[in-house]
């Protein structure tokens, strides 16, 4: 296989701080190359240099043997290098088809022709997305599909996927893997960034691992296993403690029933859903995207409203509650840690301290009518220490933090409210392995302290490792409950799918 892209001694400095240090990286024609590393390891920066999104501070890039410099992503795209971003770069107010053809439309376009062609193209990729739908109406998974389709549509010979499967369901992932293999068969080179190590091991031909901006390992996938990758990524062995089958003796017994949900309904998304949540226990909730698990818990936490007519009942400590706004739920001790931290979890331009203190204000726990900055810094320092949030200082803006540290800020913003029930929705999505372990420790600690904890996750090993009981949600209702000792991935998936 000949080399299509080669980076030689590439470095990138942000305000003098190196994000990538002297990395030499080679991508061969027609290979799937997994790029792994913790958040902040420099994966995204490296691939952004290839795709012309950021400029390297030093080093050079060879594309088909020629020394090149792509000033813009459009230059790279025209040269055959496309990047599918973690955060979608679609135009929300345009339709799927319009987004697909954006940048390559003709002078005059027949709308019907565009839609038909888009429909055929999406079908060829096995993506069930309506080409006439506005992108803003699509869920995260479908947006990701459109983003992937757009890259494929531009006939790129190098496609870079940044966390492509984070928002996809297992079924959608299978389609995606098949698509990647088809692209490979057509001679397309793929760079694949993922936190799901199994995916990298399953899909890739070669693996490159970065740590703190430096290349620490690179080679054929067959020479790697999960342990080896994690050891290279974090410099320590975490896998065994992260994802293991729960020992029956270590499963926490249920305490008092604090939340009883009976037959709540919300449109077609949540249908007669019933379950309970107990103190001192982690209740894991698994379900595919669209199974109504997030919506159910958003109803519980007052973000969504259940049906007005025959919408069921929610009882908190045996008392019926019907929240009109989330603030009432927060005051009752219910905290919902969102799955979409960027748009719902924090104020990205505000500092860590302001974000954490914002949680305190939301719970009406602040006594004074004027904000005391000293107190704010004190509270923030306490929580950043407790949650091990790594930042230059408390004044750092949340947007400048890595995904794992951003998530810890969101968690801190909730925990400062002194909750009784904490609902984590996809707590480790887009978070590196090291931070996953820390977040898992936080979740376990909360349950050990006697709080009722709910963890919603699409990642089965996470659910099986964390939960003291596992609920499976399908088509808007909990259909099955498993003890982690008896649960297997097959059993859970069977309940979730069939």
């Amino acid at each position, binding site marked *: 296989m000949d080399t299509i892209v080669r980076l030689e001694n590439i470095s990138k400095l942000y305000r003098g701080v190196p994000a990538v240090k002297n990395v030499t990286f080679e991508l061969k024609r027609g290979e799937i190359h997994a790029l792994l590393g913790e958040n902040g390891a420099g994966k995204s920066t490296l691939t952004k240099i290839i795709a012309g999104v950021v400029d390297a501070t030093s080093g050079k890039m060879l594309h088909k043997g020629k020394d090149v410099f792509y000033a813009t992503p459009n230059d790279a795209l025209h040269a055959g290098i496309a990047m599918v971003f973690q955060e979608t770069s679609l135009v929300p107010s345009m339709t799927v088809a319009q987004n697909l053809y954006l940048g390559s439309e003709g002078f005059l376009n027949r709308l019907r022709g565009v839609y038909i062609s888009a429909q055929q193209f999406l079908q060829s990729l096995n993506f069930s997305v309506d080409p006439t739908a506005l992108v803003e109406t699509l869920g995260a998974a479908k947006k990701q599909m459109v983003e992937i389709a757009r890259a494929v549509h531009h006939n790129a010979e190098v496609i870079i996927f940044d966390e492509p499967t984070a928002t996809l369901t297992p079924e959608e992932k299978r389609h995606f893997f098949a698509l990647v293999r088809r692209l490979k068969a057509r001679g397309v080179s793929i760079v694949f960034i993922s936190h799901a190590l199994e995916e990298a091991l399953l899909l890739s031909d070669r693996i490159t691992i970065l740590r703190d901006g430096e290349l620490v390992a690179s080679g054929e996938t067959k020479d790697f296993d999960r342990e080896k990758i994690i050891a290279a990524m974090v410099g320590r062995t975490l896998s065994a403690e992260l994802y293991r089958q729960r020992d029956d003796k270590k499963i926490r017994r*249920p305490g008092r*029933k604090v939340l*009883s*949900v*009976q*037959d709540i309904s919300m449109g077609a998304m949540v249908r*007669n859903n*019933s*379950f*309970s949540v*107990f103190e001192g226990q982690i209740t894991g909730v698994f379900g595919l995207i669209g199974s109504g698990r997030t919506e159910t818990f958003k109803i519980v936490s007052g973000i969504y409203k259940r049906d*007005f*007519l*025959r*919408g*069921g*009942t929610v009882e908190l400590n045996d*008392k*019926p*509650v*019907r929240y*009109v706004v989330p603030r009432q739920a927060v005051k009752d001790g219910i905290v919902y840690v969102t799955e979409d931290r960027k748009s719902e979890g924090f104020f990205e331009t505000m500092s860590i301290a302001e974000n954490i203190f914002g949680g305190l204000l939301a719970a009406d726990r602040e006594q004074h009518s004027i904000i005391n900055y000293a107190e704010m810094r004190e509270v923030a320092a306490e929580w950043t220490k407790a949650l091990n949030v790594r930042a230059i200082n408390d004044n750092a803006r949340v947007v400048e933090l890595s995904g794992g540290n951003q998530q810890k800020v969101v968690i801190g913003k909730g925990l400062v409210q002194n909750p009784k029930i904490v609902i984590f929705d996809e707590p480790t999505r887009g978070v590196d392995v090291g931070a996953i372990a820390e977040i898992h420790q936080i979740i376990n600690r909360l349950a050990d302290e006697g709080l009722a904890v709910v963890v919603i996750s699409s990642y089965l090993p996470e659910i099986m490792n964390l939960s003291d*009981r596992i*609920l499976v949600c399908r088509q808007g209702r*909990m*259909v*099955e*409950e498993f*003890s982690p000792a008896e649960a297997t991935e097959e059993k859970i998936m069977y*309940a979730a799918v*069939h």
Partner: protein
Amino acid sequence: MTIFDPLLDFFRGRAVTVPPLDGAFRPNRALDNARLVAEINAPVDMAFRNGAIVAAAGNALFELLENGAQGVVATFSAPIAAMAISSAGELAVACENGELVLDGAAVKLPPEVTCMTALSFAADGSMLVANGAAGLRPSQWRTDLMKKGASGSVWRLSRKGDATCLAAGLAWPSGILAAGSDVMVSEAWNRRILRVSDGLKPAAVFSNIPGYPGRLAQAESGALLSIFAPVNRLIEFVLQEDDYRAAMMEEIPAEYWIAPSLASGRSFLEPLQCGGIKTMGIHKPWAPSRSYGLIVRLDGDFQPVESFHSRADGHRHGIVAARALGDTIYAASAGGDAIVAIESGQDS
């Protein structure tokens, strides 16, 4: 909950809710995996005498031995409705026609007692009787539910022949058990366990049960509660629709009503509800069902500790009696036509 909710509920209708099967009610397959002791057609009750199981079915009492052999102990002029055996070995049998027989002799009953659903002996030798409803037979339990009846009562029959009404106006009392000087009663249609104490109003000790509670039996450090049918949203909805229910009762045979049942899937004429229909050729265990198998172990305070299930796709439904002998729980499944034994430590 806003202060307007009770007012709004008047207009929008109260939400039909069914308690979730979780916590102590977490579903398993203990009843389906239980050892078959004997196949017996539609058992109605069971008890132990000298270590042997005595089960009632139809007009006869059978003695079942561990080797599977069964012999008829006694026959009666009417189908048996309930039975009890005292610690001294006395056998009491209540029949569908309102007769009560104690060791072969008829017991004189007050005229109100015509529908005996459960019998039990108190420590002082007196007999406790649950009388399901006034003017109905025990087998007409569906009718009483659909009529939203609340004419049941519980009685104490002393050795001298005196009858004392302990509580009245109950919605189908279907289980009775002495607990010290008090009497515990399962009130089926209100889905709760009541404590009946002398001179006091019956007090609920365990309510919002996710099924219709039936017979109670003593067990080590607590009790066993048989739940003979599940609560079902469709049935709860039908119970809110008075005109529909009246028409259904008038025009359709009782076994095909949208009502709880001790068994289901035996006739294509039975009502089905969404998941009750098979999906991809498989009957889902979580499908809504008119019948279900459920036994609950209660602690000394009559709170649930654990449960044993036969789910929607199981066959051992309609548990009419459950009794403990040592570490083993024996159960009579009317829907499964069987007496089964749940061994301690068995795979659930």
